[in-house]
């Protein structure tokens, strides 16, 4: 299990884990649970330039398609091809199942996101 100290969260239930300028992005446990069985993931193109709030990809459950937004600005440098064949990994291990790696334009954007404790409180209020 990942160390939750390293994660930052958006209000749209994405997580970011930064290693220097590299930001791994995925969806939270709350999000995967709300979506239900995930059966399809549409990954972004590598090289795509994103502003915070842009659509990063799409995750589809049995019932519906949901856009995933990038919580940070930057360039997509890697996508998780494993999810194309095994989208259920997001249900099984949401914090290990990154969707894409974005090279950050501005690391200070991370400060605007919630830490795990604040995010947990945020989820409780949403429920």
């Amino acid at each position, binding site marked *: 299990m990942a160390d939750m100290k390293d994660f930052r969260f958006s209000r749209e239930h994405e997580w970011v884990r930064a290693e220097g300028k590299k930001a791994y992005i995925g969806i939270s446990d709350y999000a995967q649970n709300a979506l*239900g*069985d995930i*059966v*399809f993931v*549409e990954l972004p193109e590598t090289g795509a330039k994103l502003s915070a709030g842009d659509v990063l990809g*799409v995750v*589809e*459950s*049995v*019932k*519906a*398609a949901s856009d995933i937004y990038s919580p940070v600005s930057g360039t997509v440098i890697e996508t998780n091809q494993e999810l*194309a064949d095994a989208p259920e990994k997001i249900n099984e291990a949401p914090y290990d199942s990154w969707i894409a790696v974005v090279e950050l334009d501005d690391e200070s954007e991370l400060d605007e996101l919630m830490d795990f404790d604040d995010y947990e409180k945020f989820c409780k209020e949403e429920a």
Partner: protein
Amino acid sequence: MKKTPLYDRHLKLGAKMIEFGGWMMPVQYEGILEEHEGVRNAAGLFDVSHMGEILIRGHEALQFIQKLVTNDISKAAAGQAVYSPMCNPEGGVVDDLLIYRLGEQEFLLVVNAANTEKDYRWITEHKEAGVHIEDVSYQYSLLALQGPKAESILKKLTDEPLEEIRYYRFRPDVEINGIKTLVSRSGYTGEDGFEIYVSPDKVEKLWDDLLEAGKEEGLKPAGLGARDTLRFEAALPLYGHELSEEISPLEAGLGRFVKLNKGEFIGRSALAAQDVQGVKRKLVGFEMTDRGIPRHGYDIYADGDKIGFVTTGSYSPTLRKNIGLGLVKAGYSETGTEIQVAVRNKNLKAVVVKTPFYKRK
């Protein structure tokens, strides 16, 4: 928002509740995929008490219903159920329903939850002398026990010879563990199974008894999510998707439930004209060949033109493929026809295939 008597039980079982047709209903308990597979391989128990029931009786009841619906119910004996669309004068579908013939001149119409009020209004607007119409939805709760193990599970709780109840037949007074029910061999999953009508004050006990009796066989509660994927694989139409006021039963491939020669009925002349001229649109099944999931409302293209739209699309848990039903121009309905589905502004390739996608062995 209405709640069925099982609402608290659903919450206790950890169900996710959604609004559906004016009711709060369980969409899933453990997960749609698991519940879907459970019904295909063992059995599932569904609370479908949101369905509406309308009782029509009186010495002109049979003739009256014959004018309301497209199928011929005169040939059904008491104890038989008949599926039928009910059309408007233009041949569009007001609703699709199950008609139980309780007696010579007594019929129970089971209608879609979201359409119950509309149907009741429609039927009473066309009321004739010698018929009595009553919305009796409040008198019935409804459980669907579906799957290959359904009969062996239900057998544990009743002395009724269930094997004698054939498909689309019912018995109006079956005792299940001491509870009086109407048991019908029917369903909406593509599997064998029963639909069990019971008084709302008895449904909690019946639900508990059935789940207990089916433990060994792997019976689990199943939600509306699995009900939808199950009916979709069996290519059973869902009102609001494959059927609507703007889609005729002939376009939806339900011609076998439209009896143009049975005498006058609402929509007959429009449907007869469609039958003679051939329908302009047809419901087809398709399978995605590119990666992507078709969804309700997505446009369908061929040869650079828009030719129709997706009525239902999903990942198929049984086939492990992305499949859809769509209403397309009649020239594109042949099996093997290549089409494209517009998924998020990208045209993805698909091919027309035979329906149903799934048929039980």
